[in-house]
Every structure is written in C-alpha cells, then in structure tokens.
C-alpha cells in the first residue's frame, strides 16, 4: 500500500460513504430485521414455528430436490460443456447463447411453461403418462423446475476451464498408453473438480431459495410438495409474521453458510486454474 498514491485520485470518501449508506439502507438494516424479530420470540415459539412436521417436510423436499437438481445439472452440465467446447456441431453458438436463458427468463414464465409441458396433457407429460410417470403437480415437478433454474451454473463454471485446457496433457497421457477414457478420468477430470463443485454449489444455493418457477408446477400439497419459501408466504398470508420470520431465519442462516462455502470453492478454483469464475 503506497501512502503517496493513496490520495491522488479524488472521491474516496464520497464513493465509499455512498456505498456503505446504500448497502446499509437497502440490504443490511432490512435483513437485520429478520434476526431482531426472531429475538423477540421465545425458544419454544421459535421451535414450534421452524420444526413443525409440515415445515420439516418442506425442508426435506426443498433441500432434497435442490440437491438432486444440482446433481442432474452437474452430470448433464458437464456433458453439455464438454460438447460445446470440444465438438463442432451445427447450431452450437445458438445453444451456447441460450444456456443463460434461466438467468434471463422470469421465473413465473418458466413455471407456467414447464407446467404446460410436463402436465399430463403436455408435450412431454403425455408421453410419460402411459408409462405411469407423473411429473407436474407433485415432487417430480419441483425437481424439474429446480433443474431448469440451475442449468446454466455448471455449464458456465466448467466451460472456461475446459477452454483453457491445452492439448498437451491429453497427448502426454495418450503417448504413455492411456485410453481416451483413462486420460479423461485421470488427467482432465481432476482439473475440472473445483469448477464442477462450484457450479454444483451455486445451482444448489439458487434452488434452495427458488419460489416462482416451482409453485406453478409443484401442486403445493402440504407435507408432499410444499417448498419452504411457500411456507413463509402461507404464514404471511395468515398474518403469522413471527412464524414466517422464524422460518426465514433458518433459510437465511443456511444461505449464509452456502455463500461461505461457495466463496471458499471459488477461491480454490481460482488457485487451481489461475482464473476467476
């Protein structure tokens, strides 16, 4: 830190001051309201709100479906990233650009579109119906919606690492007698692991808080297909502010832990690959 240069540029006080005031007013103070409201509850009240059987069932669904969706995205996202970086195929650029659709498409639109497709009279749902597979209006619908919104994360974290990879490593593996599968497994895959885990964690974190795309397709049956964010909404609609806040506290604490994990994973990826993602 050079003391000479420090104040050559103007605007330090103004820009940092504005940043801190705006951050406090929009984010920090309102967020603190959740924790402050929680402290006005007795331990018993809090436990009643966050550990009732219906809420527990919603945690199981939310975290279970988010985990599965992130896993699906890790496997297929890796395949897609591999195909996009390694094989020329017609329409590749368009596919590449459309990968980010879940970031750009409003969640409510995704929700009704997925419902239209996966309901029993929809394009995909009607094919699965004779096989006895029901997707919309039940837990599998939640999984489909969460897979949709998490789709870009793994592709976009793995893709740059694959692009940076030189041919030399795999050439060396081949010259030492490795098959392509062995070269992938022993040489390429280990370099992808940090990015893959980061993408998985990002998709999982996004899915846990997701609301808009899920509620249309889930059916929202208590104890069966009701996600935790919907529990908060339901409690609010019943003017149970304390209950809603208690469940929100649980979700916030979990989100913060996930944020710390993701920061750690990103730092690990940057160290391993020399680039930030």
């Amino acid at each position, binding site marked *: 830190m050079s003391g000479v240069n420090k104040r050559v540029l103007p605007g330090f006080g103004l*820009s940092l001051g504005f940043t801190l005031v705006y951050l406090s007013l929009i984010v920090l103070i*309102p967020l603190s309201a959740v924790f402050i409201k929680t402290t006005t509850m007795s331990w018993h009240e809090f436990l009643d709100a966050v550990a009732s059987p219906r809420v527990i069932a919603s945690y199981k669904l939310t975290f279970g479906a988010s985990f599965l969706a992130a896993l699906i995205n890790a496997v297929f996202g890796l395949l897609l990233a591999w195909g996009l970086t390694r094989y020329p195929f017609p329409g590749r650029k368009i596919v590449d650009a*459309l990968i980010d659709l879940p970031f*750009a498409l*409003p969640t409510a639109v995704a929700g009704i579109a997925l419902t239209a497709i996966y309901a029993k009279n929809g394009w995909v749902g009607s094919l699965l119906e004779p096989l006895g597979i029901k997707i919309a209006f039940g837990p599998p619908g939640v999984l489909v919606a969460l897979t949709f919104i998490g789709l870009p994360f793994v592709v976009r974290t793995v893709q740059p690492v694959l692009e940076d990879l030189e041919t030399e490593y795999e050439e060396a593996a*081949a010259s030492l007698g490795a098959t392509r599968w062995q070269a992938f497994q022993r040489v390429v895959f280990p370099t992808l692991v940090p990015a893959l885990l980061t993408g998985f964690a990002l998709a999982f974190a996004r899915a846990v*808080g997701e609301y*808009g795309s899920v509620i249309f397709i889930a059916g929202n049956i208590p104890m069966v297909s009701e996600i935790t964010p919907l529990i908060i*909404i339901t409690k*609010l609609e019943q003017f149970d502010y304390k209950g809603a806040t208690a469940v929100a506290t649980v979700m916030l604490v979990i989100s913060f832990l996930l944020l710390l994990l993701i920061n750690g994973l990103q730092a690990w990826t940057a160290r391993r690959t020399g680039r930030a993602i």
Partner: protein
Amino acid sequence: MTGLAATFDERPDTASKFQANPATRDSTWVRYLIVGVGLTYFALFLLLPLIAVFVEAFRKGAGVYFSALVEPDALSAIRLTLLAAALSVPFNLLFGLAAAWAIAKFQFRGKNFLITLIDLPFSVSPVVAGLIYVLVFGLQGWFGGWLREHDIKIIFAVPGIILATTFVTFPFIARELIPLMQAQGRDEEEAAISLGASGFQTFWRVTIPNIKWALLYGIILCNARAMGEFGAVSVVSGHIRGETNTMPLQVEILYNEYQFAAAFAMASLLALLALVTLVLKTYVEWRAHHHPVAEE
C-alpha cells in the same frame, strides 16, 4: 455466473484443436453420444419451455393474443414493471459505480468483507427479500405506525415493489465492475489527474470508456431481473389489480384464473424480453472481446 471480465480473454476455438489431433480426438460414437445427450437435456429443460410459451400464447389466435395485451390491467402491469426497472436499475448503477470506484481505486481495511456483503442479496431467497421490507415498513413493522400516521403506504404499494426489485438486483452492476476495475488498476486515472484533469473529467473521459462494455453488460442483466422478479415483489405487492401488479404477477393471476391464453400472452412479452437480453448480452460479450479498448 461467469462475469464479463472472464470473457475478455481470447476464447480459443478448442473444438478444432482437439479434434484435429489423433491423440486427443474422441471416437465418432462418443461425440454423437455426448452431443446427443447434451442436446436432449438442453431441449427438455430449456428449448421446449421457451417454445411452449409462444405456442400457448397463440393457441387461441392472434386476436385473443393482442386483445389480452391491451387490457387495462395488462397495460397497468406493463407500466408498473417499466417503472420498477426504470428506478431500480439507475439506483443500482449509481451504487455499482460508487462501490467499484472505492474498492478498485483505493486501499482500505475490510475490502473483501465489503465485496462479500455486496453479493449477499444473490444468496437470499426472493421470498425472504420481500419479507424483510414487510418487517420494516409493514403495518406491524418498525415504521408501520409512523407511516400510517403520515398516510404513507410502502407495503402493498408501488414503493415496496421498487424497494424489493432494487434489493434483488442490487449486486448485478457492482459485481461486473469491481473485478474489471480492480484488474485495470489506477495508472490511467492518476496520469489524467497529474495532467490537470478534474476528478469528474477523469471519471468521464478515462474510467467510463474503459468500463463501458462491462457497464452495459451489468445494466442488461440488472434490467432483465428487475422486469422479471416474481417472489420478492409478490410478497410486498398485495396483488391489487391495476395498481400493484407487475407483469410477472399478472401472469400468475391470469393463470390461476384459468385464463391460460392471456397468461401466456403476457408471459410471451417477458420471454421476448429474455431473448432480447440474451442477444444483447452475446453482442456485448463479442464486442468486449473483439474491441476491449474504446474506439475514437
């Protein structure tokens, strides 16, 4: 989410490089299998929903489609969505520039912690983002009594919608600018100042041209989220027709009333917005990559 900063590097054409070399070429069936499975997954989860929006919107013909969009409630929802974006994007733009200037151009303690705090809204569930403003400004909230006495409505009114939208789009512009401006350092600005430029001239003539693509990129993503936000806005809106419904909320209301064609008509506008966003985003990435430095 990969920021624009990462795409400033030359994107190599890795496909031909690997497939030209016999040692690193994959057999044809592996190629077909991977591309086939990848594209099936892509079609099932991304392409079909996108197509479905437009097919469902036009299911009852173009007449129904267009009349659904000129309904007074629909127009009011479109206006409110535009208003929410027109306010929250500039707020967050100003914030993004200030935060990136402070973080990239100066040294101070707690900088990394500040960067983490800026990213915080991304990890908060949209529903919780709405709830926090209810706890502060709602009737039973901290300022509820005071606001009621002064006849000011924030929750279940337009200001609440703008606040919730600002919260969920908070980090978009800052997180594009911070890494880029950190990488650019402060040499150019210092040179401008030492040659006698004022702070404002330096910012306008030196900094802005250097960051214009990242800035545009952040604005595009911020705007898309601002117009499409559902969960947070749903909590604070109160769903008053013609008053506090944004476009995504209007989609929900119509859908729940089984007015599917109208719901998908409104949804198709939002899907178009998403497509325009992706086209602009791809263009900005391409420009940033081919002409990263400002032209005269």
